[in-house]
């Protein structure tokens, strides 16, 4: 019996045109969806479950009731059950920082005792990109970040992974289980939820967990980080359209690249 815990998050997606309202973006411009990286993490877990026998996939989220629809998508794609951590105390928190998420998720990991934890590399909205590794550190698991290929040897208790490093460099490494892997997009091709999967997901369990259930009080959400302002970054873009046949346009492109110093020693 093997257990995989997948952390998922509902992220806010902003429309092309939007307005900032104080420290946030007006709800009218937001749509909520499953974090893209987490979609790959769920797919990876479900593929492992389909390939092996007796693998349980549990997904966990920290989020308000609204996020049940998002986490249900993980259930529709094949997760067996889900946990949703929430509490009234969250309502008054502007920013849930990495340390707070780590405390909560680490407590869930300790309760569930999984062999493998898969997280997304980062969340598309607040983009800390640190939660997975931080949880591993807290619970004392091995870890590998930005994994874009995974070959699990469950019997040997080893995950053979390929990690994406900066500048196009990749690393092949072995990670002993139990481990936390943060999953990069492109590691697989996430499936569409089948309609039967969606229907069955309505009947799967999403267990609520409060701070109390995890052995905390509201102080677990305290953070030294405060959100003080929100603004749209100035962006500059410059597009050059080359015209002509392939030879001409290639020459023009080479000219520009040379000017910009690409390829210079």
């Amino acid at each position: 019996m093997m257990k995989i815990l997948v952390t998922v998050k509902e992220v806010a997606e902003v429309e092309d045109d939007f307005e900032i309202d104080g420290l946030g973006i007006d709800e009218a411009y937001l749509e909520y969806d499953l974090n893209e990286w987490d979609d790959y993490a769920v797919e990876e877990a479900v593929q492992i479950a389909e390939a092996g026998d007796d693998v349980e996939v549990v997904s966990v989220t920290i989020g308000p009731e609204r996020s049940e629809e998002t986490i249900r998508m993980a259930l529709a794609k094949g997760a067996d059950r889900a946990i949703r951590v929430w509490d009234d105390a969250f309502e008054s928190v502007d920013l849930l920082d990495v340390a707070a998420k780590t405390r909560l998720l680490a407590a869930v990991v300790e309760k569930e005792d999984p062999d493998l934890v898969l997280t997304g590399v980062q969340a598309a909205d607040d983009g800390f990109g640190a939660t997975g590794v931080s949880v591993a550190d807290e619970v004392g698991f091995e870890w590998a970040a930005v994994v874009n290929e995974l070959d699990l040897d469950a019997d040997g208790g080893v995950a053979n992974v390929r990690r994406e490093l900066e500048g196009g460099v990749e690393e092949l490494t072995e990670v002993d289980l139990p481990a936390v892997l943060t999953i990069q997009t492109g590691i697989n091709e996430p499936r569409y939820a089948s309609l039967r999967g969606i229907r069955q997901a309505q009947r799967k369990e999403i267990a609520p967990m409060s701070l109390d259930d995890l052995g905390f009080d509201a102080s677990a959400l305290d953070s030294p980080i405060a959100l003080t302002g929100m603004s749209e970054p100035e962006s500059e873009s410059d597009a050059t359209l080359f015209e002509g046949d392939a030879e001409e346009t290639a020459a023009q492109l080479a000219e520009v690249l040379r000017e910009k110093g690409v390829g210079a020693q």
Partner: protein
Amino acid sequence: MDFELSAEHRMIRDSVREFCEEEIAPIAQEVENEHRFPAEVFEELGELDMMGVPISEEYGGLGGDQLMYALVTEELGRVSGGIGLSYAAHVSLGSKPIEMFGTDEQKERWLTPLASGEEMAAWALTEPGSGSDASDMDTIAEKDGDEYVLNGTKQFITNASVAGSVLVKAVTEPGEGYDGISTFIVDPEEDDGFEVTTVWDKMGLNCSPTCEISLDDVRIPEERLLGEEGEGWKQTMKTLDGGRISIAALSTGLAQGAYEAAKQYSGEREQFGQPISKFDAIRDKVVDMYRKTERARLLTHKAAVRYDAGERVSTESALAKLDASEAAREVAEDAVQVLGGYGYTEDFSPQRFYRDAKLMEIGEGTSEIQHLVLGRQLGL
């Protein structure tokens, strides 16, 4: 009265929408231009359990309701009328009657492959000489021992050239009018004498094959009779009650697709120094497109919800089909206008919605016939 969809219905709609946008929208114009039935798309629809949405799970369907089926059909229409039409004909016309009127053996053999998406379905009522006056048909089925022998020609049969089974209406009791018609399950592959004689080139919906078929001494065992002899017309009326809801849903999808294209374009296109949506004439057009689309959807959902409650829906489905098909044509026409010269080109979708929408006022009973049905229902 609750106008909100359940979480399950919403999730299904959103998931189907995502699939449609990513997998169908990019090829929608291409398959039209090629006049190609995209079998690979239907295979994927089968894998996602979409081919038997309102069919019971016992026979490989999803076990969903008519409302769920309407939502799925609308999403298909929003990206491709042709795929939507072949889909709706498969489910409402070719599959659903087997579930409603078939024996367990017939369902096992004929419905299961349809509901799972292994096979496509078709339904053959119309003939060269009988369209709106559909019961006045010439196709005849004669009993010969424990077989029936079918002879005749059927016209404009969606999916016939790609179907695993075709439900054929034929006269078993000449002179009996409505009571002399029966339904037969015909296997295009196995049954000798069945031939697709024409696949029509059309104004739109060209990825959905519309066929003329000829039945020349087609001999089929008596187990292929669907329901009882003489029940064919009553079955037709029941089939169309559901079918018209799906055409209404498909039309709503076409309208929605056209409305979205126009809304987006009008916000981006600038003339005289401002987005064209800021001109009253264009704004009012887009608002009216929204109004008509929303109205079509409400009537469609109302008919579907009543259907699911087991109530009679002849009035509601005729009204939804009449209204939504007109809305689709009008909204699509206005979308072409909003896009100006670009709207007239194949690089933009409104012209395709416009071509596709026109059929919705013709198939499964013309608008004139819907008026006739509604007039009768109103006691006029």
